[in-house]
């Protein structure tokens, strides 16, 4: 499980603005089962770069349960526990308690679930773990539908979006569940939303979560080229535009417990421009787009 030909040397500085250090050690392997351009696999790669090898990943049924590879293969160089759909946070709590009993508090628990396992099916487990302030980082990589089972609508699917269960677009009455507000009500140790399209913001937040204690929750937007009906090469750009348009703001809970934006687009784009980049919003009407725009501004 070594990446002997992937070492890089020197500073990783891909623009004049980036001066944080990125480790060359990879804890995620090539050959995983993610589709081309998958935002979830890219996010996992960088989350593990920050958390380091002393991490145990717990994940329920989700895309990543497939991406990680079938037995006897695994895409992660850290231990990974697969759990049933509803119980990731509960199982992670158990692992945490076992480690505490062994006096291995320094090992991070990363609960890594999709939007289905977080917004819908796993919600009670999360609520329980959050209520007990279980010492873990819970990351929801949100690709806005049940993608690996065939793009069914979840409560994270934004209104108007096409899925196989909402062929005419998700009813505009039902928006995306405000997961940050739900978790915030549990008084978590850390709370933020992020996307890998903003690397410095992403790294800063994962590092803060790593340094904090208690139940920590990060909501990641992860592009899904097949589910969003976009070309794989545009996955990153579409994620970026989600932030630039205000559809997915980059947020963080501050010390006073209020949620604030960590990034304000200099030249924001309209919701219409963001929706136009994806095939799944083809059926959304102009009036609906305008309502959406007004919700944001």
């Amino acid at each position: 499980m070594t990446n002997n030909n992937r070492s890089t040397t020197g500073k990783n500085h891909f623009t004049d603005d980036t001066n944080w250090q990125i480790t060359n050690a990879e804890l995620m392997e090539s050959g995983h089962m993610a589709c081309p351009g998958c935002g979830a696999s890219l996010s996992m790669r960088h989350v593990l770069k920050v958390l380091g090898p002393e991490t145990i990943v717990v994940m329920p049924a989700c895309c990543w349960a497939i991406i990680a590879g079938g037995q006897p293969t695994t895409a992660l160089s850290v231990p990974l526990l697969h759990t049933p759909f509803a119980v990731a946070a509960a199982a992670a709590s158990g692992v945490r308690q076992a480690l505490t009993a062994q006096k291995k508090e320094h090992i991070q628990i990363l609960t890594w679930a999709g939007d289905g396992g977080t917004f819908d099916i796993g919600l009670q487990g999360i609520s329980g773990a959050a209520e007990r302030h279980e010492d873990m980082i819970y990351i929801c990589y949100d690709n806005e539908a049940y993608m690996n089972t065939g793009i069914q609508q979840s409560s994270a699917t934004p209104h108007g979006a096409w899925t196989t269960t909402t062929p005419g677009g998700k009813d505009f009455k039902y928006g995306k569940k405000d997961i940050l507000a739900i978790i915030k009500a549990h008084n978590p140790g850390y709370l933020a939303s992020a996307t890998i399209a903003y690397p410095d913001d992403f790294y800063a937040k994962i590092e803060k979560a790593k340094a904090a204690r208690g139940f920590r929750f990060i909501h990641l937007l992860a592009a899904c080229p097949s589910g969003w009906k976009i070309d794989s090469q545009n996955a990153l750009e579409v994620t970026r535009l989600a932030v630039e348009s205000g559809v997915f703001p980059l947020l963080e809970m501050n010390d006073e417990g209020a949620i604030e934006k960590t990034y304000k687009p200099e030249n924001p784009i309209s919701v219409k421009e963001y929706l136009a980049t994806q095939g799944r919003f083809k059926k959304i009407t102009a009036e609906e787009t305008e309502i959406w725009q007004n919700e944001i501004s």
Partner: protein
Amino acid sequence: MIKLKHIEAIRNGDFTGLPISSTSTAVNMTGSWKFFRPTLKPKKSPCFEACPLHILIAEYMQEFAAGNHLAALEIIRRNNPMPAVTGRVCPHFCQSACNRTDFDEAVLIGDIERALGDLGLTQPYSVENQVCHEKAAIIGSGPAGLAAAVFLARAGVKVTIFEQSEAPGGLLRYGIPAYRLPRQILEKEIKNIVESYSIDLRCNHKIESASLDNLRKEYDAVIAAPGLTQSSIPETWPETPTVKGALELLAAISRDEPIPGEDFVIIGGGNAALDTARSLKRLGKTVHLIYRRTIDEMPAYPDEIIEAQSEGLLLREETVIEEIIDNGRGLSLNLHRSRKNGNRIEAGDFIETITTDFLIAATGQESSSDFQNCAPELLRAGDFAHGAASVAEALASGRKAAATALRKFGRLPEDSTTDQETQNLPPITFAALHLNYYSKKPALKIPQLDEKTRSDNFSEIHLGLSLEQLEVEAERCFHCGSCTTCGICWFFCPDVAIAINRESDNAESQILFDYDHCKGCGQCAEVCPRGVIEMEEDL
């Protein structure tokens, strides 16, 4: 289902029969899924294309920003033997073409070149110990002659330069005022060239066309680069000592000769006109510059026009002289408004009559040598070959003449293949760059002497910045079309299928695509700021 005996086994370190994975997914050749594969496709930057000398600007900016100043200087010198000079007097075609202009402001390539040139004044040129028996003679030690000398000497040719004036430099010394190009900078750069390459420089040595034949017998190649050293005076103007050419006057000023007269009228709109006007003003003379078209149409470099105006130069646009009367003590000039007749300018309404001590023509240049009618096989370079042009173009033409001479000797000119390889690359446009991860950052401000401090002396106007300060400026360079191993493709690869090997000397092996695992998503091509990665079909 896990049974008690399994737990017993785990305690003993035996995992058989348990659903535990221990093999890397890297055994899956997911690369077989792809229809497109990423490849490195370097391109030529617009600055490279615009530069008459084709300096690899994107490449040396990279070295410079990394603090490798001498390596950057070496890249410049490969194509440009006089960076301290061109850094000051070149209009920087490269900067006008810079892709960063469409983003915020062009990179100050000229100021970086200038600083590196100054660094080079104390750095001998690297000389390869190539020795051959050919000898070459070069007539004229202006930029073209010096460039020809350098590129011949680099190939081991023994070079002799014949200069008719008392000191080398040609137009650089006698045509460009010291406030744009300080004498000691020019002298140091020429001295460095002459000493590094052991060039036999013979000043006060005029070559007449009659002696050309002897020269050609003695030397294997003769390159004529005598320049266009005198201003052409319009035929309709009276022949009197109070009518002069701008270049003659500039040469006299640069020789510190006393300049008689108080009032000067200069006709023209090129650099020579402005240089003469600004020099005379510095000597305390009253100067009127008269140009027949509008200021916007002046062929002089825009910076020079702006500087001249800020110095309070009296400038009359769209004005022509219809009649010149020599009244014994001075000249009376009848000024008329310009009237356009198609493309031509004619005299329109009469404006007024003005008097002046001297009338200076800066309307064109001609050669003072008599080589025009010499054998066509005589190699020519510089303004004498292609008409008045920029210093960079003169240097380029000197290099070209040297290459022609070398081919005549049956040898391949140095570096011509590298140049050609870059030249053959496709160009890169602003639209092909991906700049989402760059933020706007204006160019540095270059300090210059204010109008008051510079009004009565020939001190250099532009003060320049230190190498360390300019490193920040070089970091603004996008390095359009050349891979800098920045690592953005590596960072955004969801399949961990890109490796960067910054140790490798070979640009092509610095980025390694793992085609066994690359699924061809194409995100690397979409994030590459420099437009180097392209997707090609892979079926």
